């Protein structure tokens, strides 16, 4: 590959499509307003000429980019050239490359193509580089060249962990993203509220309470179904395999993603037991990764979408054999419970003037009671353990989370003590681990100060 290679010509179309996305939303909105407000003046040539010209322009831009984009690999260096007027040439040394991810949407899959993301260390957007569309064979050859693999991996004969249809559905059902879907749907719908006829609210009011509750239920169920479908689409055919300290994670029904991950880049493992999952002893396993992998929505790399407690040990033996799951975490001292209850109560003090002026707002206190229940579980679930060079933290915000890391991955340790904590002899212990693009903090509140100092000194290599 000494001479620069171009991408598959489909890349032109993909680029054009990508750019056209930016036009679609405003277009629908403008036309929508026209139609709703009764300004729609019927068909005109404008409705044909404008889109055709736009599409041709976008295809032209795509074609220019495609023509000037070449990639080549020789002598341990990947070279990418692009640009017509402003020429750019990037050289990446092989040993600086952190990950190579393959990703194929529906269109690419029809043509047996794939997108290649090459990621280097460093959190900047600059550190990622994509080749939009090349054949799968080329992609695997490139991947093998850049990753020191002698052979192209056989796609089918791999053993590892997969998620069957039933489990997948269960995971989608309990994913807890209903709230997000509802918010998005609502935000989208609210764009059109201004366009509703004036007597809409009068009609709405005449429907009565039961109809409103029914509508709300429908809305919730609809959102729930959408969230399940979304989940299933992105996690279908999930498989994780480990081969010589390298993980390969594949997932996705329409858009397929293939992520390779070197085991030593994993900085911390978190097991997250959501409210809907914990009662059935199910949890999600995610990892913090140094460099490379990052997602637009800020989510982490999932190394198992939904695993049962009883499968955990087998899974760790397979995937994270140098870590161990502990079932004997140290609990917090009794006196910490008071602090958790106080912390759950304080925010509600600001409502006191409201209670005095409008007594009916006392229903807010239901929120306080719920918060107290949550606080009790936050206290009960919190724990920590130091075991040789491994540190385990368990804490709860909403979902119960257990974090495991190793001493050598800790970026910094903090002990924090508020005035109250000083009085009770308690402290918050916090560690930072790398997690691209920067770092993640994990903390346990209200451990005894003695224990906090012990953990602190464990990190201090003296």
């Amino acid at each position: 590959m000494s001479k620069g290679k171009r991408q598959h010509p489909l890349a032109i179309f993909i680029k054009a499509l990508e750019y056209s996305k930016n036009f679609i939303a405003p277009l629908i909105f403008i036309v929508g307003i026209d139609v709703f407000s009764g300004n729609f003046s019927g068909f005109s040539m404008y409705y044909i000429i404008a889109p055709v010209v736009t599409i041709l322009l976008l295809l032209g831009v795509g074609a220019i980019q495609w023509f000037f984009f070449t990639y080549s690999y020789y002598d341990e260096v990947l070279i990418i050239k692009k640009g017509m007027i402003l020429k750019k040439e990037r050289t990446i040394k092989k040993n600086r490359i952190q990950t190579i991810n393959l990703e194929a949407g529906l269109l690419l899959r029809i043509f047996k193509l794939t997108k290649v993301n090459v990621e280097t260390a460093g959190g900047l957007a600059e550190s990622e580089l994509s080749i939009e569309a090349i054949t799968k064979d080329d992609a695997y050859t490139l991947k093998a060249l850049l990753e020191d693999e002698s052979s192209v991996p056989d796609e089918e004969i791999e053993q590892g962990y997969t998620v069957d249809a039933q489990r997948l559905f269960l995971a989608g059902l309990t994913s807890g993203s209903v709230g997000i879907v509802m918010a998005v749907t609502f935000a989208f719908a609210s764009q059109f509220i201004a366009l509703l006829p004036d007597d809409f609210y009068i009609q709405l009011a005449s429907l009565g309470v039961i109809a409103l509750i029914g509508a709300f239920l429908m809305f919730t169920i609809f959102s729930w179904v959408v969230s399940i479908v979304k989940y299933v689409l992105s996690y279908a055919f999930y498989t994780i395999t480990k081969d010589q300290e390298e993980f390969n994670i594949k997932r996705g029904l329409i858009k397929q993603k293939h992520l390779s991950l070197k085991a030593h880049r994993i900085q911390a493992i978190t097991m997250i037991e959501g409210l809907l999952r914990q009662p059935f002893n199910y949890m999600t396993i995610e990892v913090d990764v140094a460099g490379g992998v990052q997602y637009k929505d800020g989510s982490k790399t999932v190394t198992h979408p939904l695993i049962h407690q009883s499968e955990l040990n087998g899974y760790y033996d397979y995937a994270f054999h140098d870590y161990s799951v502990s079932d004997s975490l140290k609990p917090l001292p009794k006196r910490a419970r008071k602090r958790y209850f106080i912390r759950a109560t304080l925010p509600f003090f600001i409502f006191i003037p409201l209670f005095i002026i409008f007594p009916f707002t006392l229903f807010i206190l239901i929120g306080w009671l719920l918060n107290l229940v949550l606080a009790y579980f936050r206290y009960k679930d919190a724990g920590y353990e130091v075991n040789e060079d491994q540190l385990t933290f368990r804490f709860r915000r909403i979902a119960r989370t257990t974090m495991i890391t190793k001493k050598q991955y800790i970026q910094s340790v903090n002990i924090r003590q508020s005035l109250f904590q000083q009085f009770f002899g308690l402290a918050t212990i916090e560690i930072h681990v790398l997690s691209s693009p920067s770092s993640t903090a994990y903390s346990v509140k209200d451990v005894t100060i003695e224990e906090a100092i012990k953990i602190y000194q464990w990190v201090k290599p003296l």
Partner: protein
Amino acid sequence: MKLERPKERIHPKAMKAWVINGSIKSVIEWGVVIAYFFIRNNFETLPQFILIILIILASLLTILQVIIIPRIRMIYWGYAINEHDIDIQHGIIVIKRSLIPMHKIQHVDTEHGPILRLFKLATLSISTAGTKHKIPALHQERAEALRQQIAHLARMSEEDV
């Protein structure tokens, strides 16, 4: 058991710098009070009690910024640097203690504003891949020496990830 502060202290001159800093802030705050006073002279509908509150606030802030906070800050900063790590503690009401292993340090900076420069002081800031820590108001020579020492030590310890 209590957190024992690391041995080294920031430079005694730092207090003077903080007093000056606090004084400048106070002058600005009194400026607001005076501005309100003159505006009220022209628009008499503005209530007088706001003026009183502003005066009380400005007085309290002045006492805090110029007299109390610099002294307390002096007592509460402590740090220790050895070949393995940097240990920093600070805080007045909330105590914060941080430990940064030497081989996790990505870069060290010294910086000094005009007031710190007047007293030949500098702030040392230490960055890891995701966190940033500061030791304020060291003597410039000390800060520079530390910067080189840390850079040297950080280079010595092997680089992983």
